[in-house]
């Protein structure tokens, strides 16, 4: 076996810079013993004297304009996952260590014309992916990972060379285990070589059995099983179009390719997709057009999908010719899971057939649900949302609304002042004990209003308010 280790030392930083080029000083911080400290920083930050390990407040005193990102292990892990997907072309056996990928290339190197060809290709493509990596080759995964971190570029293939390659490395680079660290510090065992020379039984008694076992795995004296990577849980593919497409109906053909691929993917995983997210890339870097295609049931039937897709894109007006079409499915689900969900006690009225029909015909923005927001300002106390998403009720909403009307005007309508009272088809009669609402100083939307229940000459009950600052009267709601 031969393992290729790819170590991404700047991964915590690159997961941010790769998305958006960051010209200014950028640091990634993480919490160490309760204080924020710099984990990685870009060269602009280094120019200010910021360096890893510095406490964040200290870093901020060096550079006030520092852009601070909190280290995001989830994102790093995701990046590694994506890299693994990319690396799948080089090896069927892929394993992870933090910031590091391990590829077993002993079997696959021939496909690439031997090791040099494979490494060249790896390096070349890595550049395109936008990550910087250091590599090492060794007969064991542990050694490959260790060397990639400590002696990048090192390539060893036999046991004897391996031993002399790892012997001068600091023991601390092999393991961060507490017992071993202490041994290193107190007994003066600094290198892996120092430990390799010690009597094994006596060492095990002092370091615990983990260290000798680790050394065995390092040198290939013991098996080194790894959790291997398996294909991702979501699907995302983009098809670059050969020519430009200006007619939305012409998208059906390339879309079909994606859907066939998707369905193959889903079959492999034993699942179905319920929400297809389409992205159309336009010429000249115009903002892409994105839309979702909902399905009644989880499906992996390409024909069915295509039928719904046709109905959907009929209404679509393309703002510009399309150069690429992307399909993404985030949450595919197993059929079994879905049928379980039907038996849920409180499924909510998610009749997808109805919503799907209404949305596809009318557009999603016309088929909406409603939710309460926790704000005293009536215009900010509610929001349109996806149907069925408004079930969570903010605390206190009940209390507030009891004296308020079931109808709210989309925006307050100014009322004429008629001798000190508002006029709405005649002078209104106001009930006593107004509700005073004062809120919003924190977001610039400060209001201070007295809301009255008013009776119109026609007998309607209205919700009007007086703007205590501006002084005018407004109609804001109806009790009918």
């Amino acid at each position, binding site marked *: 076996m031969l393992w290729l280790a790819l170590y991404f030392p700047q991964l915590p930083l690159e997961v941010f810079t790769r998305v958006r080029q960051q010209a200014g000083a950028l640091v990634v911080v993480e919490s160490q013993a309760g204080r924020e400290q710099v984990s990685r920083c870009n060269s602009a930050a280094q120019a200010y004297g910021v360096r890893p390990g510095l406490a964040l407040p200290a870093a901020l005193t060096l550079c006030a304009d520092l852009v601070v990102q909190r280290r995001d292990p989830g994102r790093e892990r995701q990046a590694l996952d994506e890299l693994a997907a990319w690396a799948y072309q080089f090896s069927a056996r892929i394993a992870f260590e933090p910031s590091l990928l391990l590829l077993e290339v002993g079997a696959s190197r021939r496909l690439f014309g031997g090791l040099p060809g494979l490494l060249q290709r790896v390096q070349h493509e890595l550049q395109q992916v936008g990550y910087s990596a250091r590599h090492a080759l060794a007969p064991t995964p542990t050694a490959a990972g260790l060397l990639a971190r400590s002696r990048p570029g090192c390539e060893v293939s036999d046991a004897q060379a391996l031993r002399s390659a790892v012997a001068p490395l600091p023991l601390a680079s092999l393991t961060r285990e507490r017992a071993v660290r202490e041994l290193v510090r107190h007994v003066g065992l600094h290198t892996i070589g120092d430990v390799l020379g010690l009597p094994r039984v006596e060492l095990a008694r002092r370091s615990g059995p983990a260290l000798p076992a680790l050394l065995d795995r390092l040198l290939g004296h013991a098996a080194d099983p790894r959790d291997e990577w398996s294909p991702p849980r979501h699907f995302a593919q983009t098809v670059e179009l050969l020519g430009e497409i200006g007619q939305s109906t012409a998208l059906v053909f390339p879309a079909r390719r994606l859907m066939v691929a998707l369905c193959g993917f889903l079959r492999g995983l034993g699942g179905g997709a319920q929400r297809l997210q389409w992205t159309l890339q336009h010429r000249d870097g115009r903002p892409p057009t994105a839309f979702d295609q909902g399905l009644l049931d989880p499906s992996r039937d390409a024909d069915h999908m295509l039928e719904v897709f046709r109905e959907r894109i009929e209404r679509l007006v393309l703002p510009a010719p399309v150069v690429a079409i992307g399909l993404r499915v985030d949450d595919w689900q197993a059929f079994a899971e879905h049928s379980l969900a039907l038996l849920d006690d409180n499924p909510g009225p998610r009749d997808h057939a109805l919503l799907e029909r209404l949305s596809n015909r009318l557009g999603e923005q016309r088929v909406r649900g409603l939710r309460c927001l926790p704000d005293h300002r009536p215009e900010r106390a509610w929001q349109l949302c996806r149907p069925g*998403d*408004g079930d969570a009720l903010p605390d206190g909403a009940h209390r507030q609304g009891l004296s*308020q009307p079931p*109808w709210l005007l989309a925006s307050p309508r100014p009322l004429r002042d008629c001798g000190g009272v508002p006029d709405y088809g005649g002078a209104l009669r106001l009930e006593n004990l107004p509700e005073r609402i004062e809120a919003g100083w924190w977001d610039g939307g400060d209001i201070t209003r007295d809301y009255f229940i008013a009776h119109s000459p026609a007998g309607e009950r209205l919700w009007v308010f007086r703007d205590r600052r501006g002084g005018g009267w407004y109609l804001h709601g109806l009790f*009918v």
Partner: protein
Amino acid sequence: MQVISLDDLKRNGDLWQGRRAVVPAGRVLSSGWPVLDELLAGGWPRAALSELLSDSHQGLSLLLPLIARLSAEARWITWVAPPHVPYAPALAARGVRVGRLLLIREVSDEQALWAAEQVLKSGASSLLLAWPGEAGGKGPQTAQLRRLQLAAEQGDCSALLFRPLRTAGQGSSAALRLRVRPAPLGLEVEVLKRRGGWAGGSCIVPVGTGLRAEGRGRRAEDRGARSEGGADA
């Protein structure tokens, strides 16, 4: 409100079980207003079309108790082309589960009618409130109303159309037509047409501010001092 078991619901056909069963005729839904129930011989017609005719979309308050009750179930309460924003906090305060509300808005009259029909027959909605003609058109014609009536039966969905008073003369296949207008103590409701019953008769429903619970369970005549606005009596 009484506690209802799941079995009861199933037995009564209150719970939609996914099959588009034909609902027995004559079934009604209590409005939550005793005086109104009395006037309507039990409540709103179930799985049927009702019309509320008024000058300016009056009558939502009459339905709030029903909306609140039905929103506890698993089906949508659909609002087609509402004239204003249904004010979520006020609805929530009156016991409405706002997550169950489905709004179809900013649609043409044609779309509104299409959507109403889809909703009614889908079986996924227990109640449909619609303001046809809101977009400026002439409003539904008799044939269209008939389609809605059929769809309501098909999907076991009660439909309430809010229409201008001037349509009172228009023929309608609705099971119930009411005239609604403001009164000092609430809303005055007058029965213009009732399928299988007498027309005529009216009552005043004390829709108030948060005093619904107080007003409930009393007859219109002896509301008197306990309800708000008593000074005007």
